[in-house]
């Protein structure tokens, strides 16, 4: 295989790994997938090191040449559909290795895949908030208030993302907005428990999933990933607390 062609293949394979990690795949799944794909392209030795914020791969081809590529992972958007597609692509390649050209095309295809449109996500935000407010013991009135706050939260998050605000600031602002919304809505008589309204929305903000995943990473031996995830989760929880603190100072009791 030509050297330039191998580099193109490796870059495409790294793209798959990056997409999986940003979409929320577990660290050892990413490592396993990269390993299998590169071996399918005839590498005699593949060393993959992945943590939640970085991927490092060194592959040795049959000619004895070594290639290394690294990726820095910045932000994550959970996207199960992408994980599924990447997984299917890797299975396909393990059966028969595609040429570089086609591999790149497949990867681009997955990247450009359309997800649910904005209005569905907006409804999901409202729905989830309402549902969990009732789930955690709120009344239907609380649920209705939580639904409105959920819609507000979606708008706030979209706006903050457009403004490219830093994540921590985004979390503080959004939780403050939700808290303010809950206080105002109970003030005009919709819903009666500020706590229950906020809890419905909090499921969307709180790092519950990353908390669970990072504990899981740690138990299964990926200690560094687990610690990174845990720190991020703790910082986000604190940011949420700060957001509510702002509202509580303004409206004590």
């Amino acid at each position, binding site marked *: 295989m030509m050297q330039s062609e191998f580099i193109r293949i490796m870059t495409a394979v790294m793209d798959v790994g990056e997409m999986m990690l940003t979409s929320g795949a577990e660290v050892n799944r990413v490592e396993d997938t990269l390993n299998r794909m590169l071996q399918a392209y005839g590498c005699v030795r593949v060393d993959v090191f992945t943590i939640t914020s970085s991927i490092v791969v060194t592959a040795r081809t049959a000619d004895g040449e070594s290639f290394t590529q690294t990726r820095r992972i910045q932000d994550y958007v959970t996207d199960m559909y992408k994980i599924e597609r990447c997984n299917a692509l890797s299975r396909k390649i393990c059966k028969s290795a595609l040429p570089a050209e086609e591999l790149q095309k497949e990867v681009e295809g997955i990247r450009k895949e359309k997800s649910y449109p904005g209005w569905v996500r907006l409804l999901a935000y409202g729905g989830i908030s309402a549902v969990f407010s009732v789930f955690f013991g709120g009344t239907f009135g609380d649920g209705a208030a939580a639904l409105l706050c959920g819609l507000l939260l979606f708008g706030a998050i979209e706006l903050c993302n457009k403004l490219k605000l830093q994540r921590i600031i985004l979390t503080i602002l959004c939780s403050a907005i939700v808290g303010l919304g809950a206080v105002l809505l109970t003030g005009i008589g919709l819903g009666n428990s500020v706590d229950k309204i906020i*809890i419905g929305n909090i499921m969307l903000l709180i790092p519950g999933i990353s*908390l669970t995943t990072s504990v899981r990473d740690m138990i299964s031996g990926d200690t560094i990933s687990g610690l990174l995830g845990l720190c991020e989760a703790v910082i986000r929880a604190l940011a949420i607390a700060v957001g509510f603190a702002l509202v509580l100072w303004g409206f004590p009791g």
Partner: protein
Amino acid sequence: MNEVLQTCMGMLGAVGFAVLFHVKGKKLIVAAVGGGLSWIVYLVVLERYGDKALGLLASTVTVGLLAEILARVMKTPVTILLVPMLIPLIPGSDLYYTTSYLVRGQTEECARSLDLVIREAGAIAFGIILVTCMVQVVLQLANRLKTVKIG
């Protein structure tokens, strides 16, 4: 009656998050069924033994096995099915109260609540790992049996 309402809400919540996570098609139904099942198992164990962490562990193991089996039937990664199923179990409420106590300066309640959250997250995580290990052992045994028969 309250429990029925709660379970229905859990199912809807699981589907909602599945949509946010870009899960599509038939898997949304799997998310609803799994989300409901996870909450029912949790409630039953909690009722019988009165321990939240134990309830979460039992529930995670149950839906974990369900997800492993369905993932093989539907030929899809386990996470895609498992994560939405676990949504009702996520200790969002307790995490909220922890931060809320922190803000209000109620240190003692905050510590107690934090301890609870850590045990809850630990129980879920341990449940997931337990299932993964069980499945690996079973698959290896099955493989060995197969080769013995052929050989």
